């Protein structure tokens, strides 16, 4: 009887607090390459999370998140911006996500608010080598004497119901503040960051700060890598699949008054529009695969159109000018 009750409780616990891990392995990246959103997808979905990407087709420039399988731990500089200093994803997995966080990087939770238990985090090769050796724009951490109290810190806050939390979780990607220089470090391995104290969230916001700043802002390269993001969910059946054959087209982009949304094939005629913080702006229904979205009242910024059913998601981003 006790054994029966134990298995019943275990099953209920699994059902109530099932964990979903977003590890990006469902993306078929070739080895040692990256996806910086140049396909205009507007972001990446894995597990219960959506990582927005803002790619400028005019200038071939990106901001937000990219996916990577890069392995280069030796080459310094901007041209190695997609590599993780660990040389792979966590647990030697192939894929991981890279944030280019000149502005706060947002991790959006799909299918409603969820608690993020934690994630693995690591420095990119570019910031790691920049902090270790210095480069044309950034100082060597510690300075010439090795005694400068430098730091590179990430703060994580949550958005819930459109409000940004005042509480945050801090993580030092590099810390040279100790009087004992033997304690100085720059993160070079995947490190687990417990985010459960933040509680349920619509989205998480990652901010980077450094002791090395100038008139152009932070000099330390604004990159970090994450992998294996664990979310807690009531449902055990969630999994994400990107449907290559389904594509959302948005025109014009950037837009000022309206955006024409069209999809040749649909997962679901209902679409949701989110802002950068993860706040849902509205839902709409495609009619014959089309919908004209009025954005005149939207504030300037980046927005995401997400089409979803229980197990599958497709998204695209647009800019309101």
């Amino acid at each position: 009887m006790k054994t029966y009750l134990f298995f019943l409780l275990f099953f209920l616990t699994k059902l109530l607090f099932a964990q979903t891990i977003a590890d990006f392995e469902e993306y078929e990246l070739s080895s040692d390459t990256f996806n910086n959103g140049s396909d205009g997808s507007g972001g990446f979905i894995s597990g219960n999370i959506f990582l927005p990407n803002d790619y400028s087709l005019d200038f071939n420039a990106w901001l937000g998140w990219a996916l990577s399988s890069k392995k280069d731990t030796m080459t310094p500089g901007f041209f190695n911006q997609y590599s993780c200093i660990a040389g792979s994803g966590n647990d030697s997995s192939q894929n991981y996500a890279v944030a280019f966080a000149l502005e706060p990087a947002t991790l959006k939770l799909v299918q409603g608010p969820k608690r993020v238990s934690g994630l693995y985090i690591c420095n990119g090769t570019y910031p790691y080598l920049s902090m270790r050796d210095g480069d044309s724009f950034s100082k060597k951490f510690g300075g010439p004497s090795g005694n400068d109290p430098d730091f590179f810190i990430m703060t994580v806050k949550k958005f819930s119901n459109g409000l940004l939390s005042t509480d945050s979780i801090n993580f030092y990607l590099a810390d040279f503040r100790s009087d004992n220089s033997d304690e100085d470090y720059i993160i070079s391995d995947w490190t687990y960051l417990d985010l459960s104290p933040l509680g349920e969230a619509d989205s998480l916001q990652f901010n980077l700060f450094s002791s090395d700043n100038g008139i152009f802002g932070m000099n330390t390269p604004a990159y970090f890598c994450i992998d294996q993001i664990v979310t807690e969910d009531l449902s055990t059946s969630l999994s994400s699949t990107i449907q290559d054959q389904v594509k959302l087209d948005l025109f014009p982009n950037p837009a000022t008054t309206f955006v024409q949304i069209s999809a040749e094939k649909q997962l679901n005629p209902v679409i949701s529009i989110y802002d950068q913080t993860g706040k849902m702006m509205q839902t709409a229904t495609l009619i014959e695969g089309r919908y004209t979205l009025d954005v005149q009242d939207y504030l300037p910024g980046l927005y995401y159109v997400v089409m979803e059913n229980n197990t599958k998601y497709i998204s695209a981003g647009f800019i309101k000018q």
Partner: protein
Amino acid sequence: MFRGSTMLLCLLVPSFLMSQVDTILTLDSVVITALPLRSLDFGSNVKVFDAEDLRTNQSSNVADFLSDKNLAFIKTYGQGTLATSSFRGGSAGQSLVLWNGLPVHSPMLGQLDFSLLPIGFVDEIRVQPGGNSSLWGSGAVAGSISLDNHFKLPPSVFLDFELGSFNNVSQNLQLRLGRKKLKSATRILFEKSRNNFPYRPFVGAPEIRLDHAKILQKGVMQSFEYALRKNQKLAFHFWHQDTDREIPPLLTQTESLAQQQDRATRMAFIFKGEKSRSIYEWKLGYFAEHNNYQDEKIRLESANLFTTWMTDFAQDWIMKPWLRISLGTTHSYTGARADAYSDRAHEYRGAIFLSSRVTIRKLLLMAALRKQWADNQSVPLIPLLSFQYPVTPQFMIRGKLSRDYRLPTLNDRFWIPGGNPALKAENGWSQEITFSWDKSIQDWSWSYQVTGYNRLIHDWIIWTRKDGQSFFSPENIAKVWSRGLEQNIKITHTSAEGSIVSTLQASYTFLKSTNEIAVTNPLLAKGQQLIYTPRQQASAGFSLQLKKMGFSYKHFLTGSYQGIDQNLSRFDLGAIELNMFPILFRQHAHLLLS
């Protein structure tokens, strides 16, 4: 730092070598009649340095020369590395550089690396401070520098051989031939330096040596002048220069593997004629530059090249003894390629300009007007008014009011990411006034000049990052107000028999160049002094010139200023120079300690 050189001058036409002291000439109306009107900027304190001034100066390039004369603030990363100028708080692109009257700066960057301009390839440097856009066009906002070649020197062979610390070897040969119809001047330059000087990165740090800073420079310039008739001359100048540089690590770097190659070919064809009541000058220029930057460490290879064709025609008429009028037009076409351009960039620029000079007794007045076209860019009419009035034979007043502009560069317009084809020209008004006083009594002479100026530039171009954008792009978002005071005093004593000349010279500049519109990225507060713009600079020097020997000491002081990341402390620099002039041939021997 030690540097020594020997110069050998074998004159085919004998002449006596006068003692050489850096000279500041005041243009006067008798001397300048043969010059085109637009070269006669008598509203400001123009400084002219002739071939002898340049030869007896120890500077190897124009950047060092301007620093030595305290004429501009030179921004440089160190010996042999990129050196750009800042006049009166202007940006590097707001200083116009003319080679034989043709703008020679890079149309891609809008500026010129002054460290790549060898002094040995120039016969005369003319520095015109303040705005001159009406006369010379885009970029002549804060100052103009004219680098000219001429055939005034007699047939001669000139060899400058220089040995210095840190494996510095420099050889400069000049061969001048011809005295009548056809004249030729050939110049050859070879310079190399390991440049591995010791330094301390901060106070108390152990001394280290600069690494990866070699420079190798080779150049040739061939000039011909042919007198078609008594008052018509054709001149042709060909200049090719190769420079290979290792880029040394910055203070933020532990090492550097970067290197840069610059290849420049410049040609100028000049036809000049004089009639009894007019002079005219037609110029055709061709400039091609190729720049290749590689950094093996970060796997960066960047190649840029441009070619520019340019033609310029101006004619002056002496309508009356008191009235002179000049009319001219200039056109250029540039094609450029860069790895960061999506396609080959093209740009056409054209302008017409009109100027006149009126003499009313002792008062000289000048008015000028320019209309510029540049693809689809809008440039307002650009006027200039200037005057010169000798109150007494010793006391002179000069002044100038001008509107000035700088067109966006090709990089501003076409660079990816960020290039902005919709940029407007930077433009604004400037005013300046100069009081000068010169007096000589027996063996003594004094001169003192003080200049006050004011300049407000609108639509100042800044590369900025907008919210939600991962790259910087240029915008006309800033307004910069520059004002300042420049003072210069010189006292000279010449012994009765003229064998000893003692000179005491000092200068002081105060400059406030402030941003008048707050910008968030880069972070520039309203009223903040521009970065890399010291408020105060001063210099003082003493020289003693004997018959066969000269000695001088100069001291330079630069006040603190803000850099990109931190404030930079004031610094000073002293230089001792010893010159000897042995009788054999006409040798100069220099010893410079700085």
